[in-house]
């Protein structure tokens, strides 16, 4: 009886290690700063995490299929700059689909190189990180992009608007997470993504066209990036060329923090969302505590590694597990 209960608790812990870590941080920060859990603050954290979060949703697909995407940061700069530039030239109603089309093309190029030419995704997306940055600079001539009429455009709704008292970026993030969560967990396509990342050979023998699945994962990733670029552009209505610089690592950190394996085959959308929230709340919490910013870099990463450890320890059922 006692062992059964222990097993049960162990089972729950194993599945929800990252949630427990999340709860611990939230309690710790709430105790340290009275304003941490205020509605205003929670909204502001989730809203600013939405951009990173939307990108992380797409990268989750890529990572589960057994690949990497390091190009999402510079691709987001590209989408942001393009949509801001086109906004004044052809109007927002046309600028948004045009930007999505251009960003999806970039995703298709990456998907083709990784899926159909079977090139290493690390090299391809690392290369695309620089290439897209160059493309963005060529497109803009290095100039900052700004919408001329900032007050009179409905374009600001995606980043600054709110419905039923909830900021639109949060609605987009949650809606997209729910949709992609269902796609990944409840559709044949989602199961194929797991199969391709978990055991490619077995997937092939089961009649799954691996190249096509990988290609589609990169399309999903670029569509998410375009959405993130839309929120970003709409939020500030102006942008530098380097707005997404470095985000690829934060996105990857959030996905891994959510428990997806870099080797592919595991991970869920829900846990990625938790990973995104942990990152967002850590950064915000440290700021509210008034910690000196040099120290923040260190503390942020100590907490991330701690969370990954808690998650792994819960899965294995023990705290220490040395190699071999």
């Amino acid at each position, binding site marked *: 009886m006692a062992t059964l209960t222990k097993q049960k608790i162990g089972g729950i812990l194993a599945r929800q290690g990252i949630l427990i870590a999340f709860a611990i941080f939230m309690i710790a920060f709430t105790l340290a*700063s009275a*304003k941490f859990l*205020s509605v*205003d*603050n929670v909204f*502001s954290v989730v809203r*600013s995490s939405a*951009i990173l979060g939307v990108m992380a949703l797409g990268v989750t697909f890529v990572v589960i299929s057994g690949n990497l995407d390091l190009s999402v940061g510079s691709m987001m700069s590209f989408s942001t700059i393009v949509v801001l530039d086109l906004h004044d030239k052809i109007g927002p109603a046309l600028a948004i689909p045009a930007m999505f089309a251009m960003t999806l093309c970039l995703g298709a190029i990456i998907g083709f190189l990784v899926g159909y030419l079977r090139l290493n995704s690390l090299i391809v997306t690392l290369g695309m990180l620089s290439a897209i940055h160059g493309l963005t*600079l060529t497109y803009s*001539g*290095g*100039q*900052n992009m*700004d919408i001329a009429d900032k007050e009179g455009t409905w374009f600001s709704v995606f980043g*600054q608007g709110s419905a039923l008292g909830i900021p639109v970026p949060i609605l987009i993030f949650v809606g997209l997470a729910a949709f992609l969560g269902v796609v990944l967990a409840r559709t044949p396509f989602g199961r194929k993504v797991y199969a391709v990342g978990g055991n490619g050979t077995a997937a092939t023998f089961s009649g799954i066209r691996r190249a096509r699945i990988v290609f589609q994962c990169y399309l999903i990733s670029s569509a998410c990036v375009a959405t993130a670029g839309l929120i*970003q552009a709409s*939020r*500030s209505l*102006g*942008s*530098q*060329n*380097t*707005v997404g610089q470095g985000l690829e690592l934060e996105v990857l950190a959030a996905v891994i923090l959510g428990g997806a394996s870099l080797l592919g085959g595991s991970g869920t959308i829900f846990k990625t969302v938790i990973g995104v929230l942990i990152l967002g709340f850590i950064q*915000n919490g440290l*700021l*509210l505590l*008034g910690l000196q*910013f*040099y120290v923040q870099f260190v503390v942020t990463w100590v907490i991330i590694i701690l969370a990954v450890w808690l998650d792994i320890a819960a899965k294995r059922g023990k705290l220490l597990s040395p190699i071999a």
Partner: protein
Amino acid sequence: MKIRTALVASTAVFLAGAASAETMKIGITQNNVGVDSYQTTYEKAFIAAAEANADVEAVVLDAGGDVARQIAQMEDLIQQEVDAIIIWPTNGEAVIPAVRKAHQAGIPVIVTNSNIAEAGFDFVKSFSGPDNITQGARSAEIMCDKFKEMGIENEAQVVHITGQPGYTTAIERAKGFEDRLPEVCPNVTVVDTQPGDWNREKSQQVMEAFLVKYDDIDGVYAGDDNMGVGALNAAKAAGREGIIFVGATNFAVGYEAMGAGEYWGSIYQSPVDDAEAALKTAIDVLEGKDVPFLNYFDTPKITQDNMGDFTKPVF
């Protein structure tokens, strides 16, 4: 063969130039043209200024932000035997050996925009650029004057958003501001300082956290207007009014926000002035004029009151 012809030709130009003491061949290696509007405008202005001067032949290079490439470009310029080299350092430490090499080859080096580390000062003729400490101090004065006008100079609370940690410009502006503010407004308190990394979105997030944390914020000082406008957006979204925003390096967005009455002031730093000052310094050095080691160009205060005297920045 082609290379040799080119070398001979350039040597010939050089010799001709030296003989007549008329044409000056000035090489420049820039930091990263195209990465932001300031640097893009700087390059255009430099080329225009060099073309306007019949005595100057300019070799314009760009390191693309890459230290190794900049060092190679320095060596190329030494090989080409230019009369003077202007360098916009990609890294204040790493370029020192290359600067020393030029110095040893008898070519005067002028540093532009951001200075190199002190260890390299012996090999440099002059630094031409903005005085970031003065800029920070002037921003403090702008803010203090406004507080006095509003009659809140004895209780005002200020938050400070700095540039990228470790970046010389960020450090100097922060120092200038924090040293000067207590001198002019001793009762104003700086309640918090966080970096915005020269990034509008990052600065907006930092400001959102400040607004949650502090119920009373009277002033925001941001290390440049890009970040200042990010902070302004956060305040507008939160419906907090009456905050005095002061920045530095007046950007077009900052200028527009000033025009709209939402942003109080900044420091006017023109990339055109910056480029022209660098070229002028190099020419003065070559003509044997007495040039100060730290040759700052003026970066005046700009506020809603006097913005009509300045044209809108192009970046």
